[in-house]
């Protein structure tokens, strides 16, 4: 299996985790050659998750902006409300195949935690989800969902109390329990083989979207745009178009209050190479090599590293990585609500905002494919709070 992407990736883990990673590699190699595994996963994605998800043309939004046509890949319509379940379905089946009896997960916004808890319930496995205390507070509805589904949510209050600290705690659990537990990583980060496994399970997004684009528009999109925190929904979308040189791949990082303020989560735009959670990656870090607290209005993008393959696609120039500020993302969130009757996740609103920026300058026959990676129910309170804080700041 692939372990490095250019200078990035690898297996920077404690020796105790090397044997479990080998075991995972072997099990995944075996599973992906087994038609029965593909069949079982396909059935779950179809009959339980509700795939395939539609491709929706955002006609009123496109008309309002002028310029390019915007098409939305509707991952928000998956069961559990985001793309995360594509991956947890695959990893949970892999866990069962390996004879593991418990699932471990980290979560930021809570969507991966919910998607893991969901699969744990479906397969009848106990599930422990680690979540930063800051995120437990700002994503309360998802904590309730996970608990409703029978998972145990562990609030992690040390370090910066966000996703990276949750991942540290999940790794600590797994180091001690890998004989019987499976660590379901939620994004294309972590030590090999996770980036490849997660990309493979998410690539259903790009495969469907490519076919749907050709079916609906008679051609490929000009640009495929997705938000990037760790980067799993983006890698899933990009996977469908990576061999189509005419399709520009655009990853959108969380610009927070602006890259220049230092308050952001844009690892590729604002970081430098480093090592975290088992992989060499672009990392937001101090000059001394300690990991920096990130900031974004969207909890799901609030991660100081990024998938190693994204770093490599950036180096080679195959994909372009931009950053969208909180205010731009919230404006795009509002636009999609009002023009299309769709409440998007704040994470996905970053990708949408990039399309909103680009569309007016493009010809009317250009097509921007945006991955609407999740729905925004979980963000209603955050958006309300963000707006009132901004109004208060403007008034003072």
């Amino acid at each position, binding site marked *: 299996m692939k*372990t490095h992407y250019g200078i990035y990736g*690898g*297996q*920077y*883990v*404690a*020796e*105790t985790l*090397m*044997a479990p990673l080998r075991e995972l590699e072997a099990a995944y190699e075996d599973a992906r050659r087994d038609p029965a595994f593909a069949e079982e996963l396909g059935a779950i994605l179809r009959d339980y998750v509700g795939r395939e998800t539609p491709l929706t043309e955002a006609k009123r939004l496109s008309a309002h902006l002028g310029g390019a046509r915007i098409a939305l890949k509707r991952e928000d319509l998956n069961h559990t409300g985001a793309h995360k379940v594509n991956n947890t379905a695959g990893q949970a089946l892999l866990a069962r195949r390996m004879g593991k009896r418990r699932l471990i997960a980290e979560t930021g916004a809570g969507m991966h935690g919910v998607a893991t808890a969901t699969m744990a319930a479906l397969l009848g496995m106990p599930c422990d989800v680690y979540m930063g205390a800051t995120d437990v507070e700002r994503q309360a509805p998802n904590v309730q969902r996970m608990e409703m589904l029978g998972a145990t949510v562990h609030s992690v209050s*040390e*370090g910066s109390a966000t996703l*990276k*600290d949750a*991942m*540290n705690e999940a*790794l*600590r659990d797994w*180091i*001690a329990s*890998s*004989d019987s537990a499976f660590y379901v990583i939620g994004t294309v980060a972590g030590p090999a083989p996770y980036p490849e496994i997660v990309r493979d399970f998410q690539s259903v997004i790009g495969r469907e979207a490519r076919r749907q684009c050709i079916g609906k528009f008679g051609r490929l999109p000009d640009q495929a745009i997705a938000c990037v925190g760790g980067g799993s929904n983006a890698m899933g979308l990009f996977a469908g178009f990576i061999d189509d040189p005419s399709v520009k791949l655009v990853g959108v990082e969380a610009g927070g209050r602006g890259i220049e303020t230092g308050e952001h989560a844009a690892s590729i735009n604002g970081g430098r*190479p*480093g*090592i*975290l*959670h*088992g992989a*060499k990656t672009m*990392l937001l*870090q101090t*000059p*001394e*090599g*300690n*990991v920096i607290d990130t900031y974004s209005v969207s909890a799901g993008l609030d991660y100081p590293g990024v998938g190693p393959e994204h770093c490599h696609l950036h180096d080679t120039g195959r994909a372009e990585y931009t950053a969208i500020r909180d205010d731009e993302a919230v404006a795009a969130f509002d636009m999609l609500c009002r023009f299309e009757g769709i409440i998007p996740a704040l994470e996905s609103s970053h990708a949408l905002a990039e399309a909103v920026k680009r569309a007016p300058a493009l010809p009317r026959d250009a097509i921007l494919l945006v991955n609407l990676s999740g729905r925004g129910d979980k963000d209603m309170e955050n958006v309300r709070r963000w707006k009132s804080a901004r109004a208060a700041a403007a008034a003072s």
Partner: protein
Amino acid sequence: MGRIEDSFARAKAQGRGAFIAYLTMGFPSEERSVEAAGDLISQGADIIELGVPFSDPFADGATIRAAAYEALRRGTSLAGVLRMAARLRAAHPDTGLVLFSYANPLYSMGLDAFARAAADAGIDAALAVDVPLEERGELLAALRPHGIGYIPLVAPDTPPARIAASVEGLENSFAYAITVKGITGERAALPPDLARRLDAIRAASRLPVAAGFGISTKAQAEEVCRHADGFIAGSALVKCLAEGRRPCLR
């Protein structure tokens, strides 16, 4: 022969296992951690492991994590730990000094710059907890020209062939045998099959073998040293400092 090899040879000649003491440097303060290292050397520590505090210590238990966060809050950096190492080296010319870090601070400084600075500070060997056999090539290439050894970790289930590969070509070093599948921290009891595992590791390793993780009492240390060439104590010592006591094993 280097100081690491000398330390093991000296302990063996005295009919005991080498005592390797880990401290999170900069905790509870730069002064106190340097003093504590000196104290441990006076108590018979053969080698001091200087822990570099890191923001994301995913292989550590609660005691060492809390110490690392406090050391970072006080501004301790890799460069600061190397300055502390230089002070210890000046005061203790024969004691082995091992730098114990996560990978990122070393890479962030630049591996060549790190190796040069570590050699200047009198460091004998380095250990990066998240740099396994597969990834260690560039780190070894940087350390070797400066005569700095590398300490490989061996897990409870590392197969014999991998143990042999892990110690291959290393000088002025020892194999760090992790006693438990888990993170650092004190344990009431060590695993029942530890003796058998340590015997197997020793059989596969051309380097001396020291056991660490979970060793917090003199009795545990003695038990371990019947099957290893030395032992490492960390959390138990750091806990003494956290409680304002002299660092020592019960």
